[in-house]
């Protein structure tokens, strides 16, 4: 039996720390222990009930099956907890309930049958139930204003991380939850496993960043070309992912499906990736990498982004098409330096768009009301006329 399954079985039916009961595994199959996620797991997430408050919590365990001789992964796990500590009492951020602790997991060594104790790390955080998938995957059930408001909150949750000098590195629709705090709606970014502090020392081994750390489909061009480890680029990488989410709210095609069908983009993608991989083998300094990258960007400085937000069959109202496209282009610019990373400018733009839409909606409502009044008036006039006709007929009769 794998260590992972042993842990799942051990936690089943027990009360952890004397406080958390009904512990059930969430992100992998409880029978096979196979991951439900897209890639290799770093942690096992359990849902449990807090006996004291009656609320649910998420218990995140470091995956005991990870072969981690240098403790690199374990350090990342600890880093996540440290980052969450920095975010305590921030309304727009995920809240940590309990810092990293050790759980003594007793496992059997399959080679000699002897038992040994693995001190497995875990931390506990709040459990937020509602995701935001409906707005993306059942989008025609929501009007544009609702979707834009959700997007606004989603972006703000990321910008609030940025304000704490943290970037997420795995922004995608699956990693957000809806919550109500102090009677206000919030969208919270979860899974900070790949998140890092902007000020943290970069990893000396740049080769581990040949591909994006988070979901590749939401990652910007530079992250695919081996620049994912450069701290300076982190914030704009998150912003790019937000842009692709904005696209998916209004289109029946996913952003990256459209993008990877653009021959011109693929050409740039393949060329840049190929070139940077060769350059990376020379083990250049961060400064040199950026120099080469800027040279590349200069080459495509006039290249319009291959996509317009208005894909085939999009549901963007006419009133905001231009403004929304402008915002979209600001978020997903191929040049990371030109992306909209300032939250106040973002707010100004998105609120403007929502206002336009609200006014248009209000105007529509006014027109409808006026129409209704006119119809009522006509009906009344008709009624009066009918009565008059009836009276005259009677008189004549």
């Amino acid at each position: 039996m794998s260590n992972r399954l042993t842990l799942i079985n051990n936690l089943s039916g027990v009360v952890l720390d004397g406080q958390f009961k009904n512990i059930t595994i969430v992100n992998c199959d409880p029978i096979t222990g196979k991951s439900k996620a897209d890639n290799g797991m770093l942690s096992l997430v359990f849902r449990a009930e807090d006996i004291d408050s009656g609320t649910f919590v998420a218990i995140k365990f470091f995956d005991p099956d990870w072969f981690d001789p240098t403790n690199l992964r374990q350090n990342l796990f600890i880093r996540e907890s440290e980052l969450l500590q920095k975010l305590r009492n921030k309304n727009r951020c995920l809240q940590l309930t309990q810092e990293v602790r050790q759980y003594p997991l007793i496992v059997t060594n399959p080679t000699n049958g002897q038992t040994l104790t693995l001190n497995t790390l875990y931390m506990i955080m709040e459990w937020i139930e509602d995701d935001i998938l409906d707005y993306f995957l059942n989008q025609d059930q929501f009007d544009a204003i609702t979707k834009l408001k959700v997007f606004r909150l989603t972006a703000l949750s990321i910008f609030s991380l940025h304000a704490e000098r943290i970037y997420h590195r795995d922004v995608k629709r699956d990693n957000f939850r809806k919550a109500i705090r102090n009677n206000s709606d919030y969208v919270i970014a979860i899974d900070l496993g790949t998140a890092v502090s902007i000020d943290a020392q970069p990893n000396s081994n740049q080769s581990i960043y040949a591909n994006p750390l988070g979901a590749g489909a939401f990652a910007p061009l530079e992250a695919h070309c081996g620049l994912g480890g450069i701290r300076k680029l982190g914030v704009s990488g998150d912003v790019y992912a937000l842009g692709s989410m904005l696209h998916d709210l209004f289109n029946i095609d996913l952003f990256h499906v459209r993008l990877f069908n653009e021959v011109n983009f693929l050409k740039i993608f393949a060329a840049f990736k190929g070139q940077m991989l060769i350059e990376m083998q020379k083990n250049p300094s961060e400064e040199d990498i950026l120099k080469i990258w800027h040279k590349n960007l200069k080459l495509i400085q006039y290249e319009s982004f291959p996509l317009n937000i208005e894909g085939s069959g999009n549901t963007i109202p006419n009133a905001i098409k231009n403004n929304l496209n402008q915002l979209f282009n600001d978020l997903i610019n191929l040049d990371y330096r030109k992306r909209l990373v300032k939250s106040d400018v973002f707010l100004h733009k998105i609120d403007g768009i929502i206002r336009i839409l609200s006014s248009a909606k209000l105007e529509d409502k006014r027109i409808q009301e006026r129409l209704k009044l006119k119809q009522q008036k006509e009906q009344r006039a008709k009624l009066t006329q009918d009565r008059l006709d009836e009276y005259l007929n009677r008189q004549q009769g």
Partner: protein
Amino acid sequence: VKIMLEISKNSKLPDIALDPINVEVSALDSVLVLPPIGKLVMGKPISMQGQSLTKNYDSLTDIAKDILMPELKSLLRSKDRFLNSSTYLAKLSGVYQACGDTALATVYASKAKEINSSPVFLQRLGDTFLKANNPKEALNIFSDLRTKGYIDSHLRLAEFAINNQNFTEATKLVDEALSLDNLDWKVRLLAGTLALTRKEFEQAIRHYRIAIESKPNSSVLRLNIAISHYLLGHPKKALREAQKAVAVSPLNLNALIFLADIVLKESGKSETKNLSTLQRHLESYFLLMPIDKGLISRLADVYLSQGKINEGIELLDKNKDQINDPVIWNNLGVFWSSKKNELAVKYYQQSIENVGGIKHASLNRGSSFATLNLVNLLMNNKKYIQAEAILKTFVQNTVNTEYLEDEVLCKVPVAMLRAYVHLDKVMEAVNLAENLLKNPDLHILGRLDFLAALTTYHSFVTLKHNLSVEFAREAVNLAMEFKSEVPFDVINLAKNNLACALLESGSIDEARQLIEQLQVNSKNSEYIYATKGLYSLHTGHIDRAKGFFQQAISLAENEKKDAIRLKMNFELGKFCYINLDYQHAKFHFKKVVDAKNVRDGWSFKELQIKSIEILNEMQLKNITKH
């Protein structure tokens, strides 16, 4: 002054071979393929490339599929929850499609359509059928959508019609789409390209201009406009648009090729700014993109035009083994010809050997050029007999001229003409020229070449000036008729030739009008000043004539300086002789006879012979003492 027109503007340089590359005119997912630039105006049929919707997906790299696969898994995790959402199903279908599973893509697109029958999902299903290689079902859906006035379906149907070469139906569909929304850029793009196929170039530009309002940074649209301008006979405007197309998308190979061809062939190699910009673009392209044979030849040509021989050799040397084809060997020969003749000969021969020897040389563009270049190199070294022998073998084995590029087709006889003249076979050369003029396949520039040769021949050898005027006039008419294909300076040369022929035949007034016209068009041309000098002599103003000639000499390049000086001395000698100023006449004729470094060709040789004759005559009559 008659300067024999030669097809290569810089006759001293051998010809670099550029692989002919078709120009793609984009229309949505289809691509119209136009023949290489040099052939565009010859009216060859415009061919159409097949449906490229599937091509786009084929080009989706494995890397992209790897990136999308987790996304597919992520969507599938929510399958139970969103099975009744049409947008979810459409998205799922799209990801399956992108990952190459057309069967499941069709299943989910059908389910989406069942839940929501709006045109968007119908169109999606139609597209999925198309990509799954089921055009019949797709066609049914698009035809149904057409009745509902859904523009995208019109465009798909138009593409079907284009692929079936049914341009009338395609035009009808696009017109219908235009009536639904005349500002839709996709409709305008297709409308423009259809106009292009009908050779309504101005109309095409109008459509593209409207489309570009919505897509200002579209390299494809800019290139299409450039192509339309080119076909309309506006090379400068075409150049400007092609430059924009490359500026907005420097990795657009199609735009780069078009720009390179237009800069190299049209804008004049003297425009160093254009050349250096082009060089920068091409070099940047090679920094990132894999080797492209056609572009390497063009970059080499750019180096050659700027006299950057070492850079050219380095470029070709680096890529010669990987490319290993007659074109690259010929081009290496071209570069070495200015440094080391033996190496040039070696590379030309390698190019010819690459196709199996001189007998097969005409089957390949590179080896054809190599043959031609080798022959010219031999002739420059006065090896006329050897050159003539190679040319004869080449011509005898050219069974089908269809494969031979126009440029080669008209240059081979020019080389033969040159060999014949030097082997004292003038009559054979004239016969060759006259016969070739009857060949309908002869390229327009070749035709102009031979007409110029015949003009020169009658003007200098037979002295039948009426015939000389006739041929010169035919050349001008021809150049004007095909003016979009004939470089501007060649048209002016043809006009200049006619002006000279007219002066010699005594039609001074007509000549004056032509000269006035030329003065406006080509202010800084040495030829026009020389012709003005000739005109001044014919109107009796010797001092003014000398001034004009001197100006022409100062404007001309080295070799041409000598040629113009020789012609000036001959004409001044003639003028003095007629006006009984024998002393000055003798002075000028002697200068003609003593002239060295005079370019090849019968005209100047003839001037020297005639000068000797007149000097002898003067000596016989002993009239120089007067």
